[in-house]
């Protein structure tokens, strides 16, 4: 999985491309988010537009990132999950856990609240 990071004020947008699955994508996601919080970043927007799918390990890592953010008094939100990824979030009821956006500007503004 490829990762690109962009900063907008206090918010880091993480563009993910590939699949979040056991052994590779989940590890990359964990290390990326851990590094951001270690660097003192607190607000993270994960852009899932380029994520083709996740497996249960990838879904679990998303939840772990959410918990990590809470532990660090940060916030982690989702942007543009593809149809397959969003279906998985709905199936697992995690659409009720994650704040999810389809528009980046709206997502960025939401961190000001």
């Amino acid at each position, binding site marked *: 999985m490829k990762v690109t990071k962009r900063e907008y004020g206090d918010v880091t947008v993480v563009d993910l491309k590939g699949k979040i*699955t056991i*052994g590779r994508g989940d590890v990359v996601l964990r290390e990326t988010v851990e590094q951001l919080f270690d660097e003192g970043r607190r607000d993270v927007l994960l852009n899932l537009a380029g994520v083709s*799918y996740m497996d*249960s390990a990838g879904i679990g890592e998303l939840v772990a990132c959410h918990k990590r953010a809470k532990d660090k008094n940060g916030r982690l939100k989702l942007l543009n999950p593809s149809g397959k990824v969003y279906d*998985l979030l709905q199936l697992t009821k995690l659409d009720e856990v994650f704040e999810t956006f389809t528009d980046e500007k709206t997502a960025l503004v939401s961190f000001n609240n």
Partner: protein
Amino acid sequence: MSGKPQVQVVVGSRVEYVDALHAVAEEMAKLAGLPEDEGFHFALAIREAATNAVTHGNGQDPAKQVTLSFALDGGALMAIICDQGEGFNFEGAADPRLPENRFKTSGRGLLLMRSFVDEVTYQHLPGKGTEVRLVKRLAN
């Protein structure tokens, strides 16, 4: 379903091999003529069963094997995943959709399997391992 395995893949218990088993499942879905979305779901269900076998069943012991077999007959595509572990408790798995379980970082594999194929059955064979069968019925 009585068909003998028509495709069989055997791998050591390494997480890296789950992708390979997933790829074979995708090809079997195409051979069975499943529509794209159903094929995606079928292969993801197999991936979850394979991950369980590698990690929970065999504890990622590379000396222990995971065997994935497919049988395709007129009415269904069946996959059988066997490990060589001590077994794990399917019945005891908590529903990850319940509010009290939503923040758990594991325990969603069985939900995905049950959601994406028509039948999931399993049996532990003492001294041999666990066998999980997933059946996807094919449209006429």
